[in-house]
């Protein structure tokens, strides 16, 4: 009994502290955004470092969006580079061919958004096979989808075919990448911790049971796929405008595998894990560049070691308290209190 009162006390204190610290998150976001803007405007950092920061951001978006399907929903999708390709090609085509040259920089956000929307439409189509098959068979369907997108682009002459598509200006800047990273974290965090998100998690735990508990599994799957592919498309659009050159081979199975590795390195079902996984993988690949070709030998070995000694990835279903909405923190504390587990 005493213990319970103690916990109630702590909850009250914590709640008070969090209420008072409400300004912290917007302040931090604004600070980082201004920092990104300043870095971009005045070249505070080396161009190479800026480039890597942008890659980190793009990979975070990709990892988060795949984590929604593979981690939170428990499906096994392997064709994520396909969505990325759709977004990249739509956005590049808009900025190069459709928008007037002098307005391209202003209309860039629109192009990125359009890329995301296009990818989301395609995601809608891919969502349907997931009603029928799960697990390994869905892996095949998404894999085949990725290959179909790649070979379809190779056969469209207007998009440069196998030679690729170029002419984009360097429109992806650090502030834009930061903006989209913040958007994707915000969207996916709010999605996962909403009522709807409980449905997503329940599909991971047991699809039939969640269907019986009146979760509309079809709707949940469609929305999860659409959101996930939207952000993959956004990441693709940003990627295209960093590199200023895309060709179908940039979006093949190897790219999909990379995203998968980042998801499982960071740990499934965890926003913090996705951010850590994407950051560590991207930065480590750059840091190890002096090793030349041997870094590509070393990295998979590290991944295997990680899986052997920590099969759940770095975070694995855990989350920094930072990313959990306040009421969820309290809910879980109360739950522990009720079950007599005071840790």
């Amino acid at each position, binding site marked *: 009994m005493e213990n319970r009162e103690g916990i109630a006390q702590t909850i009250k204190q914590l709640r008070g502290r969090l209420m008072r610290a409400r300004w912290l998150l917007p302040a931090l976001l604004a600070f980082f955004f201004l920092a990104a803007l300043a870095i971009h405007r005045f070249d505070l950092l080396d161009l190479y470092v800026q480039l890597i920061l942008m890659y980190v951001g793009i990979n975070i978006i990709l990892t988060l969006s795949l984590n929604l399907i593979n981690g939170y929903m428990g499906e096994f999708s392997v064709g994520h580079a396909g969505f990325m390709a759709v977004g990249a090609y739509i956005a590049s085509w808009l900025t190069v061919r459709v928008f007037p040259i002098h307005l391209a920089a202003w209309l860039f956000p629109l192009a990125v958004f359009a890329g995301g929307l296009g990818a989301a439409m395609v995601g809608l189509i891919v969502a349907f*096979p997931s009603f029928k098959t799960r697990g*390994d068979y869905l892996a095949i369907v998404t894999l085949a989808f990725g290959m179909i997108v790649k070979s379809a682009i190779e056969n469209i002459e207007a998009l440069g075919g196998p030679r690729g598509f170029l002419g984009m200006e360097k429109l992806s800047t650090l502030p834009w990448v930061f903006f989209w990273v913040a958007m994707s974290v915000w969207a996916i965090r709010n999605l996962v911790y909403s009522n709807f998100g409980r449905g997503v998690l329940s599909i991971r735990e047991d699809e039939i049971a969640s269907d019986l508990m009146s979760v509309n599994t079809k709707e949940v799957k469609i929305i999860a796929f659409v959101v996930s592919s939207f952000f993959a498309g956004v990441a693709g659009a940003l990627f295209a405008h960093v590199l200023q050159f895309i060709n179908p081979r940039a979006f093949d*199975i190897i790219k999909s595998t990379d995203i998968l590795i980042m998801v499982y390195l960071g740990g499934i079902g965890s926003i913090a894990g996705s951010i850590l996984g994407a950051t560590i993988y991207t930065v480590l690949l750059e840091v190890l560049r002096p090793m030349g070709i041997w870094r590509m030998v070393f990295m998979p070995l590290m991944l295997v070691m990680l899986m052997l000694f920590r099969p759940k990835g770095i975070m694995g279903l855990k989350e920094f308290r930072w990313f959990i909405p306040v009421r969820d923190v309290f809910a879980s504390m109360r739950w522990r209190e009720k079950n007599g587990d005071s840790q």
Partner: protein
Amino acid sequence: MSYILQQLINAFQLGSIYALIALGYTMVYGILTMINFAHGDLFMVGAFLCFVAAVFLKLSFVPVMLISMFGVALLGVLIERLAYKPLRQAPRVSAIITALGVGLFLENFTLALNPYPKQIPQLMSNTTWTILGLSISSLQVFIIVLSLLLMLILDLIVRKTMVGIAMRAISWDKATVPLMGVPMNLIISATFAIGASLGGAAGVMYGLAYPVIDPYMGIMIGWKAFISAVVGGIGNIRGAMIGGYILGMVEILVVAFFPSTYRDFVAFALLLVLLIFRPYGILGKPHPQKV
């Protein structure tokens, strides 16, 4: 007409190679319900062992084949022991990601050792016969016959021998069979050895039929073989053979009648259509779900 027949022979050649690799996927899946994504790269290692044995050791065809099959089998068992065995109780995705990692490792390790695509020398005299306007090379006949023979041997092993019975028993029920005194680890190793050696044989045949090999060739062919295993119904050995021949046939016929750039597009679209009608593959059975 003869053009179509000619293409059919080419399709049989390609299909044999796909089928041999698909067998490795389907055997491992049948026994561990795990997709061994490193299998395509074992096929690549087989081709490179063939290159090493043929160029540096200057061996003739039979020892080259044996070295490749044996070497790849050893590698398959080693990978299973070091990377997959500790993960048997872990979530299934960890094992899949480990397999992806092992595959990447094999690719890049081979690439780091010798960075250029290699050409495999001709190991056997290759005569071309012309029958009824069809040209058939002895190599094509040899590849088709040898792979059919290997598949026949595998089918006999799985149906008639003790090892095969134990394999089928384990894939039926993993919990009870070890209690009956079946050495489970040994049987799993044997499965990996047999599957990998078939992949190695396919590597040698591929190297002979399409002489240029490179470290990344295992990716595409591995995925395609995996797809053929799924088309046939993954876990089903005869299904894998059928799936391999179907995929080989579809690819060659698409190239014969369309621009060759449409090959992957049509092949995968067909796969998706097939999975709509038979979601578990041609010979596969739906897995009953407990409620």
